[in-house]
């Protein structure tokens, strides 16, 4: 009898410890890891760019990005003056652990169409934790090593359901845009720790400038 009671209580203590460890992993360790990986991705990009291997591409090429590889850095001043994240091609689970993910079948950065990007709300560095703070007029700045793209948010955060795929259409119906243009869509999950809904913001391309011209006004403090 005593052996049974002891074994059961030992099992309970073990399961409790496991749960605590798992919570530590999800809340803390994924963030530590993601910050390191995202920093690496940004370093990789900046190294590639400083070598000057990025040429402004001819306007007509319908090239696609290399899946799983970083191709741009995003800055959103509203989420913090030090907030910057790499943008990778694809929205697979593994890709989103390393940064924000560009929906592969949406437009390229700065081009006609809808450049759609997904990011974690929580875990893996919490990139979009403060997503609900975004307001119309906020800047979303991206660089691909040759050009700065400044998008301005027009609508959002807009709450929808996960099956609402038309929010990343070239001209998203609920965004209020009526004609084709150069748009940006950001998506993340809502509620913070859940998966029942999605939060969306839409933005339009406001201005571009070559990197040689320095940081765009939206990033200057």
């Amino acid at each position, binding site marked *: 009898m005593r052996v049974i009671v*002891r*074994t059961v209580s*030992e*099992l309970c203590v073990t399961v409790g410890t*496991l749960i605590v*460890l*798992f919570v530590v*992993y*999800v809340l803390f*360790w*994924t963030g530590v890891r993601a910050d390191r990986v995202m920093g690496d991705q940004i370093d990789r990009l900046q190294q590639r760019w400083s070598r000057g291997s990025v040429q402004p591409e001819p306007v007509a090429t319908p090239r696609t990005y290399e899946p799983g590889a970083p191709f741009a850095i995003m800055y959103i001043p509203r989420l913090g003056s030090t907030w910057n994240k790499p943008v990778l091609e*694809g*929205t*697979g*689970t593994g890709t*989103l652990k390393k940064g924000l*993910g560009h*929906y592969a079948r949406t437009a390229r950065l700065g081009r006609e169409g809808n450049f759609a990007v*997904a*990011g*974690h*709300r*929580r*875990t893996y560095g919490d990139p*979009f934790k403060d997503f609900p703070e975004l307001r119309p007029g906020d800047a979303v700045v991206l660089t691909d090593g040759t050009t700065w793209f400044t998008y301005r948010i027009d609508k959002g955060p807009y709450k*929808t359901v*996960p*099956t*609402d*795929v038309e*929010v*990343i259409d070239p001209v998203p119906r609920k965004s209020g845009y009526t004609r084709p243009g150069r748009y940006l869509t950001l*998506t*993340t*999950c809502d509620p913070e*720790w*859940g*998966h029942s809904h*999605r939060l*969306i913001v839409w933005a339009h391309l406001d201005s571009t400038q070559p990197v040689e011209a320095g940081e765009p006004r939206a990033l200057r403090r």
Partner: protein
Amino acid sequence: MYGWIWRHLPGNAWVKALISLVLVLAVVYILFQYVFPWAEPLLPFNDVTVDNQ
């Protein structure tokens, strides 16, 4: 369970304590390196896209 392990570890109390510590660290390492990364995507925090890719 833990008593059984303790009794079957070799050496005196100090050696046993040391081996236990190493065992605990090994288990934590395996959990963080292999088990939790496998279990975490089963939770909903990864669903941030609108097309369930």
